């Protein structure tokens, strides 16, 4: 392509650039504002101060005195971490089983499991709450994770991605006398590393963001999660916006780190089984 052609192409793209710049600004601004508000006092926030202020330490101290920030952060990390490990193990095992040992019976089971995708969380909330409460699991990590350990989404994701798993390895390993479980641990898991990474990112994000279910089963303040903590901060009659945005910032730090460090895995995790 000649130089002239190139600059003509770029000129034609000017409206596109303008549009994308506007959309990018709208996308980024609320987050910029959240961070700047966390460093200002509530009066400055309300009057529309957009630059960074000097109240970050003050807001942080107020947040610490008003809430159990460290305990809640630890809860959220614990729930989301355990959820991720257990869900990945259970669902990858199933994806492995469905794809590499597949027969008619298993396909029928798979199609039945997919129906669970249509079951809304709000419809199972009450029976599950009664179940958790009768087993004495309220306010424990088990109540948090049990309903979402096994999801059709993750099983499907592992199943679809298992299609690329080389079957020859499987046969070779069997001839060498490796057990079926051994194949899963020693061959499947290492080969599927990138699928595990994507699945881990999306599972962790979903668990971290969960709000309705924890609100139902975490009745004790000491068991609450970060989303619950910041929702409570905002629920009062007089809201200190500086402190609130400091809390919101803390709730978003893990998700932001994941976003910036693992963006590729995050995008893959979202699209999951769509290939």
């Amino acid at each position, binding site marked *: 392509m000649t130089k002239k052609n190139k600059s003509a192409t770029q000129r034609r793209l000017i409206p596109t650039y303008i549009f*994308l710049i506007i959309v*990018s600004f709208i*996308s980024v601004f609320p987050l910029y504002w959240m961070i700047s508000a966390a460093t200002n006092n509530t009066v400055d*926030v309300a009057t*529309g101060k957009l630059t960074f202020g000097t109240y970050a330490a003050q807001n942080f101290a107020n947040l610490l005195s008003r809430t159990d920030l460290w305990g809640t952060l630890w809860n959220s990390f614990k729930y989301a971490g355990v959820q991720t490990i257990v869900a990945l193990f259970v669902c990858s095992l199933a994806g492995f089983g469905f794809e590499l040992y597949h027969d008619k019976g298993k396909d029928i089971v798979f199609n039945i499991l997919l129906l669970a995708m249509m079951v809304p969380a709000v419809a199972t909330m009450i029976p599950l709450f009664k179940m958790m409460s009768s087993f004495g699991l309220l306010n424990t990590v088990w109540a948090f994770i049990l309903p979402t350990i096994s999801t059709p989404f993750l099983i499907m994701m592992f199943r679809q991605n298992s299609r690329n798993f080389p079957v020859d390895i499987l046969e070779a390993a069997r001839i060498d006398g490796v057990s079926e*479980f051994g194949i*899963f641990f020693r061959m499947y898991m290492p080969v599927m590393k990138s699928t595990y990474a994507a699945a881990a990112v999306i599972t962790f994000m979903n668990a971290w963001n969960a709000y309705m279910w924890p609100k139902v089963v975490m009745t004790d303040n000491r068991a609450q999660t970060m*989303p619950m903590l910041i929702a409570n901060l905002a629920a009062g009659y007089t809201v200190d916006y500086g402190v609130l945005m400091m809390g919101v910032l803390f709730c978003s730090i893990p998700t932001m780190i994941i976003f910036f460090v693992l963006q590729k895995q995050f995008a893959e995790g979202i699209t999951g089984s769509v290939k």
Partner: protein
Amino acid sequence: MKTIKRKQQLAGWGFLLPASILIAIMSFYPILQAIFMSFKTGSSANLQWANPLTYNYSRMFKDALFLRSVGNTFLYLIIQVPIMLILAILLAQLLNNKDLKFRGLFRTMVFLPCATALVSYSLIFKSLFATQGLVNTILVNLGIFETNYNFLGNTNSARAIIIIALIWRWTGYNMVFYLAGLQNIEYSVYEAAKIDGANSWKTFWRITVPLLKPTIIMTVIMSINGTLQLFDESVNLTSGGPANSTITMSHYIYNNSFGQGVANFGYASAMSFFVFVLVAILSRISMKVGDKRD
């Protein structure tokens, strides 16, 4: 030889057993229980069969607040989902252009709202649109408004803000699907169209949309599913207010079961079964519509 094959098949069943049992116990069993419970009334510890059995269902369709929550949810669905998905396809199409500079940067920025935790973004929008918030300050300073407007205290503006917030949070998310889909389309198809003199509008409707159809159907189903279950935004952005005029179905069901002191499990179950039926029907319809347009 046969026994080895059998052993392998058995191992296969073993692998999928934990996941299958969990889904059965945590999804299928509770939905059946919810159906049973929807025919009962009374406090949570003392549920009795309702008299008549369909009492909760007839109550539901006479409950003005429930009907409003259904109306609100559909309003969000009908306005937000099309705007969001069209915007997402458009952005994906623009960002798929190889001549565009800073593609990665633009993509990251458009995708960035997904990095915000769900409750976080509701609270950010609540603060931005507060009566003493930034948006009001700017509008008053620019002279567009004379005095501060209570966005979240008026039904229509509160609904609009829920929709704006949803579009902000989820457009980039859906764009990722379309970008992935577009990458499967050979770039040469576009070059050929360009040589044939098709403008970008034509290319978009004649090439991009048809080739992305499976992806579009999936995002439609996911968005319908998600919007019908809207909860976080209603609770945290508007608290369902003013006077319950922006409340969603999930929020209302929550209020009837855990939210406001009264645990009306039977009635809440009936309403939640209604949501389940809606999700199932609308997913079926979108799949059918998608199949037909070949």
